[in-house]
């Protein structure tokens, strides 16, 4: 029974109500009967609150996870996806734009045109750069993905049901406020410490020495990565080239820059860390998408180029982006259901709690060698 969020993707949740001794009262389950209240919202709040004492806006502002209710199982289990699903789900469904949206506009104007009415306007970059583009029959997420890529930005659907678009630094800040480490010494005045154990997977599966592509108009372009230190079985420097199809998207004359940017992503070993913590409410301390410090020298998780003060020591942690958070819902939190009319029902007395715990995906998204690839040599 967890809730999860991911950067620029839909998370998920499952809330199970307890029927150990006494059945879950119908007065509670009727309030989220899916036949009447599908697409209501589930809010996770890091403490118990009485919804009658707060306004709708206040409760949303307290939420560390807001989900869209989609599945009811056995009357007492609620499932769904994170509010970012309002941009469109993984199956390509959503508030698809039926009419073409065309123009040469700033990111703010594009987002205004593409944002679905299910989400309120958040903070959007005031960049003066423009994009000439046209979109039709795409979900908002598909269109916004393209727009933010073009501007070098990201989108974020907040738990307050707003849509933010900006650079990573402007969305999440650039100075970490959290350190995850097994050498936990509690909360400092300067950094919030969360006790964590790390898994460290490093992969060369996507390692690339050279990228070449064809830009619009058919002109070729290429770029080499940093000189490789790896060798093949014959003693030669390994050759792993990657072809990128830019014929539809890469503006003529910019292919070299795009290729250089691509190869820079892949010319090193990809380190992917999973971070497991027993902290009470990770989503209250760590914002999905933000950068945190990770420090576990015994697992080679450190960076001598980065300094931070923690626990009375000068430590040398890695700065890593949190790509996703999966969190257990545990006793002490508040679980609220918000129906279609904005009426709240407090589910907290009936929730089957779990022990405190969270898993953070940090670093670059991992490319794992799938079973299918091992068997057939192709990615599943």
């Amino acid at each position, binding site marked *: 029974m967890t809730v999860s969020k991911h950067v620029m993707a839909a998370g998920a949740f499952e809330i199970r109500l307890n029927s150990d001794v006494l059945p879950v009262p119908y007065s509670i389950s009727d309030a989220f009967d899916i036949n009447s209240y599908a697409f209501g919202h589930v809010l996770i709040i890091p403490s118990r609150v009485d919804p009658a004492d707060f306004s709708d806006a206040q409760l949303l502002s307290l939420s560390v996870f807001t989900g869209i209710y989609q599945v009811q199982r056995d009357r007492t289990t609620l499932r769904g996806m994170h509010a970012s699903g309002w941009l469109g789900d993984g199956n390509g469904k959503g508030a698809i734009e039926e009419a073409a949206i065309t123009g040469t506009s700033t990111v703010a104007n594009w987002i205004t045109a593409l944002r679905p009415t299910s989400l309120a306007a958040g903070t959007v970059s005031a960049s003066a750069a423009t994009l000439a583009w046209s979109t039709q029959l795409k979900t908002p997420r598909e269109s916004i993905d393209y727009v933010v890529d073009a501007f070098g930005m990201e989108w974020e659907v907040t738990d307050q049901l707003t849509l933010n678009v900006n650079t990573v630094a402007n969305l999440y800040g650039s100075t970490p406020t959290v350190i995850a480490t097994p050498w936990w*010494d509690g909360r*400092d*005045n*300067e950094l919030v410490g969360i006790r964590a154990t790390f898994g460290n997977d490093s992969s060369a599966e996507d390692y690339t020495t050279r990228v070449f592509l064809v830009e619009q108009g058919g002109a070729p372009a290429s770029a080499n990565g940093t000189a490789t230190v790896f060798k093949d079985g014959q003693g030669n420097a390994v050759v792993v080239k990657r072809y990128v199809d830019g014929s539809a998207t890469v503006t003529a004359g910019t292919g070299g820059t795009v290729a250089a940017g691509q190869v820079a992503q892949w010319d090193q070993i990809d380190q992917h860390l999973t971070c497991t913590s027993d902290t009470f409410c990770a989503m209250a301390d760590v914002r999905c998408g933000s950068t945190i410090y990770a420090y576990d020298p015994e697992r080679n998780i450190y960076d*001598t180029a980065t*300094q931070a003060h923690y*626990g*009375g*020591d000068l430590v*040398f942690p890695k700065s890593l982006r949190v790509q996703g958070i999966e969190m257990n819902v545990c006793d002490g939190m508040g679980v609220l259901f918000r129906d279609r009319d904005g009426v709240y029902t407090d589910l907290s007395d009936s929730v089957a709690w779990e022990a405190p715990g969270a898993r953070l995906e940090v670093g670059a998204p991992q490319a794992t060698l799938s079973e299918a690839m091992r068997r057939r040599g192709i990615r599943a």
Partner: protein
Amino acid sequence: MGLEIGRMRDWNALGNIETVEVSARTITMNGRISIDDTEISRAKAVRDQIVALADNPDELFVPMKWDGDVTINSVVRPTSATATMDPGALERGWFPWKITADRVPNGSQPNVESPLIGGFRANAAGVAGPPGTVVPWHAVPYAALDYYDGASAFQSVPYLLESATGQVGFYPFIAGVGRKTARMAIPPANWYDGAACVEQAYPDGRYYTVHGRQLYSGLSSSGWRIGNGIIRITPGTGGALVLQAWDSATRAWGASHTLTLSAYDGSSPYTVNRINSVSILRNSPEECRIRIGLGLLSTGINYGHRTMLDIKIRRGARFVECRWTTLGTAMLGAITEAASTGGTTFTGGVVSGGPDAQGNLVAMFTPTFASITTGPIAMDSTGVGIRALGWSFGVGIVLAGAFAVNPNRSTDLRDQYFAPYGERMTVVGW
């Protein structure tokens, strides 16, 4: 028959050993604390030291020495340590105890690895490095054998430092920022030579070395000491800290140097006038860290605002590394050595002018901008534009003062302060 295990050097306290069971992998010892029944505080201190042997991540391995059979003396890994509080124990201090430990292969002279991470403290003071001014260093018991610092082409002879608890070998190395793994063999008898340690005062007024991070309930917030046998910090009166150096000639602690702390938030000046709390963050022979809560006074009012001072000391250091932090309002901080006069400034720090009774001087360092004054010596970072929520500084003793030689001169200490390392020593067997 007496027993010494871990930091417990009270040979008599563990003299009453009833049984010792030995297998190839483990050793289990049962006994009773044997202490004069007028010394109940001492008995409780020893009890607290015993039970902290196990489940102590800061010291997984400890030396054990038993005069009943010296052939089994070695480094061990305690897995269980208990004491029973029966009426006889509580009234007379004769606590029954039991210690179970894994025997370490080759534990009679175990090989040790010590990963060192760091090498440079970013600073605005203009201290360059590496490979510029700063001097990364590592200190181990001088009796350590087969040493390699993980960086040098050929290992030089270490500097010899005298401490209250044995001789220390001090190895400087200039190799830039990074991670090095030092290796050595340490005889168990020399395990704690020059070790960093924290002590706490029990109701009998005596100080006992702390095992682990557990301070006893009722400990005064000023009833502690942190040191490494070369220097030590103790709480002074009125929230001050007292810095002393070990005088190996007289085998006693030398002159007391009173350090006062103050702050300024832009509208009111504050002085630290009390120590509210103390806790241990790390307690290993190679490094100890404590955190104390400091109380602020301004215009006769004791403020409860939270400011915490972390104090770190490493084996072989002749300075402590401090980080003073607060929340909310940028205000930190300033430090003054009250009695000194006629100091001299240098890049990143200041040293006092007049030697103390042992001929030593006091030096201070900071990586942040600070107004540095010389009479008395002080560093103040509370000026407009540089007030902060966290402020780092170091305070140390220049042994032999104006006659100091490498690695003890004030600028040597500065160079070492600006090349900090975090270290976790572990036994690897061979």
